[in-house]
């Protein structure tokens, strides 16, 4: 009975193929019903962050990783994401500029710094120092800049400072290149 034993040998392969096909179909289906919801949620999150930074915002445009924020026809400023190499991983920072030179505000979106020490980079007493500062002056005060580091969290503090400054300089250059 060669035919029967061939079928028997092929059975594991056939079964695995069936299982994989069913699983992939299921995943495609779940992806199709959740995709819209997920991207809407991400848009919503960005919009909430931008509105917090630019309360008069009515719309924004997103191009080349830069959000340009408008109130009707007036340009309010720019915002972009900066990623700092912190003590415990990446620090994601949303940086808002009121024009091509001045920081409007920064907001720490996510971070995994040491609780009680590095996590204080999210607190207003630290982030408020960036408001209105020229992007060339974003350096820790011990290096001659305008931002005071948090006591015993120098690595987290300088990660934020460097990420904000370097990304801001890079984005401003990019903006000038576009014009």
């Amino acid at each position, binding site marked *: 009975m060669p035919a029967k034993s061939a079928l028997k040998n092929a059975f594991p392969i056939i079964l*695995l193929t069936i*299982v994989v096909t069913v699983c992939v179909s299921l995943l495609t289906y779940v992806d199709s019903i959740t995709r819209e919801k997920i991207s809407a949620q991400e848009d919503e*999150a960005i919009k909430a962050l931008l509105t917090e930074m630019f309360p008069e915002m009515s719309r924004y445009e997103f191009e080349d990783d830069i959000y340009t924020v408008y109130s009707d026809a007036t340009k309010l400023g720019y915002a972009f994401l900066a990623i700092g190499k912190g003590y415990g991983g990446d620090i994601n920072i949303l940086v808002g500029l009121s024009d091509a030179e001045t920081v409007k505000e920064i907001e720490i979106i996510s971070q995994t710094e040491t609780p009680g020490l590095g996590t204080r980079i999210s607190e207003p007493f630290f982030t408020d120092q960036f408001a209105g500062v020229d992007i060339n002056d974003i350096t820790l005060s011990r290096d001659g800049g305008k931002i005071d580091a948090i006591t015993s969290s120098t690595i987290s503090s300088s990660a934020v400072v460097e990420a904000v400054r370097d990304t801001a300089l890079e984005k401003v250059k990019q903006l000038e290149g576009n014009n």
Partner: protein
Amino acid sequence: MGKGKFAKEFAKGLILSNPVFVLALGLCPTLAISTSIDNALGMTLAVLIVLLGSNIIIAAIRKYVPNITRIPIFIVIIATLVTVVNLIFHAYLPDTYEALGIFLPLIVVNCIILGRAEAFASKHSVIHSIADALGITIGFMLALLMISFIRQVLGTGSLSVFGIDLFTLPILGEHPIAIFILPYGAFLVIGLLMGLFRRTGVMKGE
């Protein structure tokens, strides 16, 4: 058989075969996400869906699965369920999704799931596998809640669940013991609880 067996398979997961304290399975997510009650409940929900689904499917097809393709088939089923849970959490529970981070997709390699598939669901009926999944998940939840409660209260000095502040301790609220929120705090708490349970004889090692 019947009802008595169902209850027995269910109850064993709670204490005698508690996944964390006795079987010492799933310690990686336990260490990582037991920093707050919210995370513990989110993780429990994810594990419940995946474990219940994988136990039911694997028990249902157990008679047709040849031994040599057993593991790939189990892994494909588990990975599919985890991805589904991942997408659904991302879409409908964004805060929990954010808090659990990488540990949500990592349920794929959580040894509780494959462990139960191999040790139980592939040898027992669907009904008993459901009992097993429920018992093990609740045992997992009890362990997570216990560890999270201790870590959250000592590490932050207060307890809040889903944004509702339940209480703040007088001195700890001002000066929380941050070590309990950090990863080594988890080792400390799990080790001490495990020791305590063995010493008092509530749980015995297998």
